């Protein structure tokens, strides 16, 4: 575990089993049996998102689903409360930097399929 992470597993039952996930495209080893938020904290992730109001960095606060600070994009679904999501091998995780852009990924073909009402 990185030495600058805030939390680490207690050495109770030997080395914990870890799995691999990606965060913003980079591979990360995180312990199993945790929430995504807990896992990322132990992997040294300090910033989970930026406040949409000021852009200031935010990270988990309550770990029980009442503060909404731990929001991450998990496997393509944005704004997941990562403290309530069980971490699984292979998850694709992205921090939420700035506001969502809904227009990204607008399907070109969907626009072209409008020809029936073109007249």
């Amino acid at each position, binding site marked *: 575990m990185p030495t600058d992470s805030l939390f680490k597993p207690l050495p109770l039952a030997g080395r914990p089993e870890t799995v691999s996930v990606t965060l913003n495209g980079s591979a990360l080893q995180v312990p199993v049996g*945790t929430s995504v938020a807990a*896992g990322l*904290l*132990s992997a040294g992730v300090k910033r989970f998102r930026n406040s949409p109001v000021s852009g200031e960095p935010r990270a988990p606060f309550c770990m029980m*689903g009442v503060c909404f600070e731990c929001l991450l994009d998990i496997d393509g679904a944005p704004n997941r409360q990562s403290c309530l999501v069980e971490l699984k091998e292979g998850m694709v995780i992205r921090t939420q930097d700035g506001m969502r852009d809904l227009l990204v990924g607008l399907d070109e073909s969907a626009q072209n399929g409008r020809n029936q009402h073109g007249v």
Partner: protein
Amino acid sequence: MAYDAHPGITPSRPVQSVDIAIIGAGPAGMAAAIAARRHGASVALFDEQPATGGQIYRGITQVTSARLDILGPDYGEGATLASSFATSGARHLAGAAVWQVTSERLVHFLQEGRVQSLQANAVLLCTGAMERPFPIPGWTLPGVLTAGAAQIMLKGSGMAPTSPAVLAGCGPLLYLLGWQYVRAGVPIAAIVDTTDGGDYRRAIRHVAGALAGWQYLKKGLELMATLKKAGVPFYKGATNLHVLGKDSATGIGFESGGMSRTIDTSLVLLHQGVVPNTQFSWSLRAGHIWDEVQLCWSPVTSKWGELDVPGVYVAGDGGGIGGARVAALQGEISGLAAAAQCGHLPLATRDQLAAPLRADIRKNLSIRPFLDALYQPKKANRVPADGTIVCRCEEVTAGDIRSYVELGCTGPNQAKSFGRCGMGPCQGRQCGLTVTEVIADARGVPPTEIGYFRIRPPIKPITLGELAREA
């Protein structure tokens, strides 16, 4: 306006039904389910977590003996409840986020991306407590978490701080966490305690109750002794708390013993008590009173826990802070009442079974006045200075709220419309109490006259697409 409003209402689809729907799998919810099932009622219990236990018994179904040793015997009590629940025959909807409970007792929930609803004859809100907001400068920085969060890391994931953390605030949970860290061999940078001489003097008046709850007292004293023996640095009567750092926490500053102090740390764990999680009860427009001692809102209930919304009950910390044992007892009482309401046991039996439980509750509550007096959170940490952020989601400061009052805002809903405090994703959970108290303080009237945010569904997030599928 609605020139093209959708005509008509969608035809009603058949909805599944159940006798009793319980929201929350903590001690109150589990105990209620067990009691109701014992009398043959059908029960569905909803919780967002994958396993039972709520927050206080978080991780109880997966706990190892090594972890039990660290967490202590009180935590272990949850195991009995959890296993009784598992064999009770109640339907457990895990990973289910309830996003609305209507006054007609229809429960709307989201599970694995699917929206569904369940009609109940009785609904038990056992949503427990959450940490009281602790608005001090810097509290929104990464690296600042609640003591409860740290406990969840410990219970749920077996994780502890990498480098020494500062525990700041007051209340039994803070010291309990410290004690658990000591037992686990985790170094603590310091406990910065806001409790001062005045608190002790106030609490002494309730010492009779404290002595009646002597087991709690004994536990507390033992706990403090362990902390002292372990040499954990202790600062008393701390004031002017503020977290230092720019992009993340680098330390905490405060005043104690007449001196200004700074402790370097990258992890600050804040706690100044817990308060009832009242999102559902407020969303039902149930009556609430302002508890002058616990400084929070409590739903008004009958002695069976029923709200002024018929068929909806509250049990456990969600109705007023009493602790895990009291929560289980209240859950059992409300479970009996709900089962009786559904016709599964005669009222006389219900009364008979409830009587010894009530006596037990009284006994377990005897310590509360003492604890509530001793650990009442300081006004400066509830009604902060102008520059401190009150609404984390929308970054509204105490000064902003005071300026709305000057503009003529009389309460939190007007303040919300003027400044967006309470409009963010947490829907007022982290700021509601502070907003009420800041406005009360600015207007010079008691909080009970100020009221609270109007709480609306969705109580938990749901996407537009998910909601559209319910149509």
